[in-house]
Every structure is written in structure tokens, then in C-alpha cells.
């Protein structure tokens, strides 16, 4: 080989100009074709001459560095399910304690807070991961005007929403519609109850005044210091601890409903519900809490609020690590997530747990119908997402459910501050 290389004569020839022009032309042709194809996917015009043809659908891969590109080629949901199955395998009894201690050492789990002092109780990593904590180790902020942290974790981003745009991390933004789905109709589901009066804006304002009167009437009848905004922060009876009163919130609200019925007010609760549109002198705010693998993975209600509807977006399961949040634009709008929409004392409120590759299963305690990242019991959203994937299309839809009103006043599932709502499970 060395002799052949040494003895072979190298002779250089100029490339014909026509060949070079042809190559550049071909390159340009492919570039234009790709650009036009992309435009047709995004709903723009089709390439010239292709008006009668259906647009060529291709799977849109997220933009980003090579790590993101590689990740986008992986079957992340299948990986997540496999990870969940693996972590559900029972660990031999004598390996449990050293295994969990090693895990705790690596990911910084504070074992003194775990409710079960004997780690042998956890048969596998999945059950240890979804552990509970000892009562009292997470005291709630005593100020009822505070919004509490829903989970242990790190604040990745927070701020005010400007013109419907949520900033992800450092300048990357996505629309509120993309994250939560399109704005629901102006009136909530419980307004369509036969016989319930439809509310106009002026009627709603009028209803609010009436509701305040009813509220005062209720307070007068029951001797409770109870104002309209306090309904969502927990009514407080004079001289009684807040916790015991919070526990009877449901009964109290039923009582409010009775008073309202006595005063023939009808259902006026919809006037609080103004999703994505803040009232005058109000604004929409957002906060992103990231849970690291070693954190307690159950989440709690950050305030007293009413969850009216649930939207399940069966998206992908990319990692939600801070690195990927910086590098993958619109990560939260791509991943599988459960959006709980409702209201609190100041208006619109939403709670969105976003799944990740290692924790694809989102559990909502009061929603037994919800199945996330489940192969055996695919939900309608999963099926729609799978069909969209077969066609090579992105799936941006969701399946929606409304929570049955506990009372005509609340119109949804009531949650008290600090109440456990659900959690993230492995796989």
C-alpha cells in the first residue's frame, strides 16, 4: 500500500464550471423544497404546483443541540415505562437498606424525615421514591395570604405573564395556550345545569354583590367571621385553630349554598372564572418548581382553591432537568402533563404537574379516571397522541374532564391549603 501510494502519480484537473453550478443548484433546490415543506406543515401555503396535493407530513423534531436531537429520536415513553417496570421489581430483603441508603446518599434524601423508619418496608425503589413524610416535618406558612410551595424542589423561574407568554428559562417563552390549552368557554361546566341561570358580565357583577350579601347573612346567622375571599383561604371561627375549621370547609360551603338558595341567588360562582384574562388591577403570575430525583415526590395544594377541570396532554417525556429546560424551547408544551384549571380567592388558578422520562406517571388523588404514561390502560389522549404519531404529526390536543361540583357554590373539587393532591411515580 505504501509503495502504491508513493509511486502513483497524482494529476490535478479543474472541475468543470457546469458541474459546480449544477451542484449548487441542486443544493438550493433541496433547501427551498425543505423550507416549503416546513411551511406547509405549519399551515402555510403549499409549494407551487402542489395545491391539489395533501401537504407532506413529517415528524417535527424539536430544535436544539445534538443531545436534544438524539433524545428526540428515542422512544421516551417506552423507555419511561421500562424504567417504571424495572423499579417495580422487588429488591431482596437484605439489599433494601444499603440500596436505599446509597440512593439517599447520592441524591440527598433526608432519611430522618421519612415516615417509615424501617427501610425494609419499601419493597422496591418505586415505593421508596413515592414515600410519605413524618407528620409535622413540613409546617405550613401561618399566613393565609401566602401561596405555598406545592412540592419540595428548586425555583427554576417565576414572574409575571406578559401578553400570554410564559418565560421558560432565560428568554425562552411559550404561550399560555400552548401550556394550558386553549381558553375554556367563559362559563364553567356547572353553569349548564338545567335550570341554572346563564350569567352575563353585568349579571355576574350583580351576582357578586348579592353573594357578598349572602356571605354576610351567613356570617350573621352562624356567628362566623367569614368573608367572601376567606372562602378560599379557609373560614376562621374566632378562638378556634385554623386546621380544625379547614377540615369542615366542605360542610361550611354547603351551608353557604343553603343560604344562597334561601336568598334565591342562583349560581353566581362563574363570575370568578376568567381564565387567562386577569381582572382590572390583577395580573397573571407563574412559578416553576423543579423536583430533583431525591426530593419528596408528592405535591400538595398551594392554597385553598377549587379545581374545576382537568386536561391531560399526552405528549412526550423529555427530561425536565434545568439543562434541558435551557436548551429545549417549549419543553413544557411538549411533555406529558396534567393541567388542573380552577380558581382561588383572587381569580384564575392552575396547577400543572409536568412528567419527565424517569417520572412519567402523574397521580391525582381525587381523579381515579386519570391514567398517565400507561400502556395497558391508554386514555383517549394517549390514543389520539399515538394516532398522531403514526401519521407523523405533532399532537397538541388534550382530553378534558370536569370535576363534579361538590356544591353549587364551589362548582368543582375543593382543595384546602397544604392538602396532598397527588404525586409523581417512577416510570
Amino acid at each position, binding site marked *: 500500500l505504501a509503495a502504491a501510494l508513493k509511486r502513483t502519480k497524482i494529476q490535478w484537473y479543474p472541475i468543470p464550471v457546469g458541474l459546480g453550478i449544477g451542484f449548487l443548484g441542486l443544493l438550493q433546490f433541496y433547501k427551498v423544497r425543505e423550507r416549503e415543506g416546513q411551511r406547509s406543515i405549519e399551515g402555510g401555503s403549499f409549494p407551487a404546483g402542489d395545491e391539489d396535493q395533501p401537504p407532506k407530513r413529517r415528524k417535527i423534531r424539536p430544535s436544539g443541540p445534538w443531545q436534544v436531537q438524539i433524545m428526540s429520536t428515542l422512544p421516551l415513553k417506552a423507555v419511561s415505562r421500562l424504567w417504571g417496570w424495572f423499579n417495580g421489581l422487588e429488591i431482596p430483603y437484605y439489599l433494601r437498606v444499603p440500596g436505599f441508603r446509597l440512593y439517599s446518599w447520592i441524591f440527598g434524601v433526608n432519611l430522618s424525615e421519612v415516615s417509615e423508619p424501617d427501610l425494609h418496608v419499601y419493597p422496591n425503589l418505586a415505593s421508596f421514591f413515592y414515600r410519605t413524610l413524618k407528620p409535622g416535618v*413540613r*409546617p*405550613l*406558612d401561618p*399566613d393565609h*395570604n*401566602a*401561596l*405555598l*410551595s*406545592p*412540592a*419540595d*424542589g*428548586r*425555583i*427554576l*423561574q*417565576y414572574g409575571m*405573564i406578559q401578553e400570554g407568554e*410564559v418565560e421558560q428559562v432565560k428568554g425562552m417563552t411559550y404561550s*399560555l395556550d400552548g*401550556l*394550558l390549552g386553549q381558553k375554556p368557554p367563559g362559563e364553567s361546566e356547572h353553569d349548564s345545569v338545567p335550570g341554572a341561570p346563564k350569567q352575563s358580565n353585568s349579571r355576574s357583577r350583580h351576582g357578586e354583590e348579592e353573594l357578598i350579601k349572602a356571605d354576610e347573612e351567613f356570617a350573621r346567622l352562624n356567628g362566623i367571621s367569614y368573608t367572601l375571599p376567606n372562602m378560599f383561604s379557609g373560614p376562621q371561627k374566632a378562638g378556634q385553630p385554623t386546621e380544625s375549621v379547614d377540615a369542615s370547609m366542605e360542610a361550611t360551603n354547603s351551608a353557604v349554598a343553603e343560604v344562597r338558595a334561601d336568598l334565591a341567588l342562583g349560581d353566581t360562582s362563574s363570575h370568578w372564572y*376568567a381564565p387567562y384574562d*386577569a*381582572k382590572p*388591577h*390583577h*395580573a*397573571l*403570575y*407563574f*412559578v*416553576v*418548581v*423543579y*423536583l430533583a430525583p431525591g426530593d*419528596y*415526590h408528592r*405535591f*400538595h395544594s*398551594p392554597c385553598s382553591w377549587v379545581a374545576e377541570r382537568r386536561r391531560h396532554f399526552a405528549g412526550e417525556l423529555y427530561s*425536565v432537568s434545568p439543562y434541558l429546560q435551557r436548551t429545549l424551547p417549549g419543553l*413544557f408544551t411538549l411533555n406529558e402533563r396534567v393541567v388542573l384549571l380552577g380558581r*382561588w380567592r*383572587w*381569580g*384564575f*388558578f*392552575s*396547577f*400543572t*404537574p*409536568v412528567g*419527565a422520562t*424517569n*417520572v412519567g406517571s402523574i397521580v391525582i388523588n381525587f381523579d381515579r379516571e386519570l391514567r398517565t404514561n400507561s400502556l395497558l390502560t391508554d386514555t383517549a389522549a394517549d390514543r389520539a397522541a399515538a394516532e398522531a404519531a403514526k401519521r407523523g404529526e405533532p399532537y397538541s390536543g388534550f382530553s378534558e374532564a370536569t370535576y363534579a361540583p361538590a356544591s353549587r357554590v364551589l362548582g368543582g373539587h375543593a382543595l384546602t391549603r*397544604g392538602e396532598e393532591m397527588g404525586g*409523581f411515580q417512577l416510570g
Partner: protein
Amino acid sequence: STVVLVFEAPKGKRRSFDEGWQGGERKGGWRWAVEQGQKVKVGQALGYV
């Protein structure tokens, strides 16, 4: 895993100059009690109205 909260809260009223207005500071509105990157625990206040 991540939890995203989006909520409505009052902005509060802008303080007048006589009340000691300090460049956009508002009274009675929403104010954050956390910093970016801060570790938080369940039940800890993220902010106050």
C-alpha cells in the same frame, strides 16, 4: 418532574410619591418571597398577597 403554577393575583396600587414611591413598588398586591434557584419545601411561602 416539575410543577408549574399559573395564577391570578392583584397587582396592588402603585404608591404615590408622597407615600414613598420607590420605582414601581406597589402596595397590597402580589409579592414574591422566593428567589430564582432557591430550594423550597412543601408549605413554604412562595409569595404573599
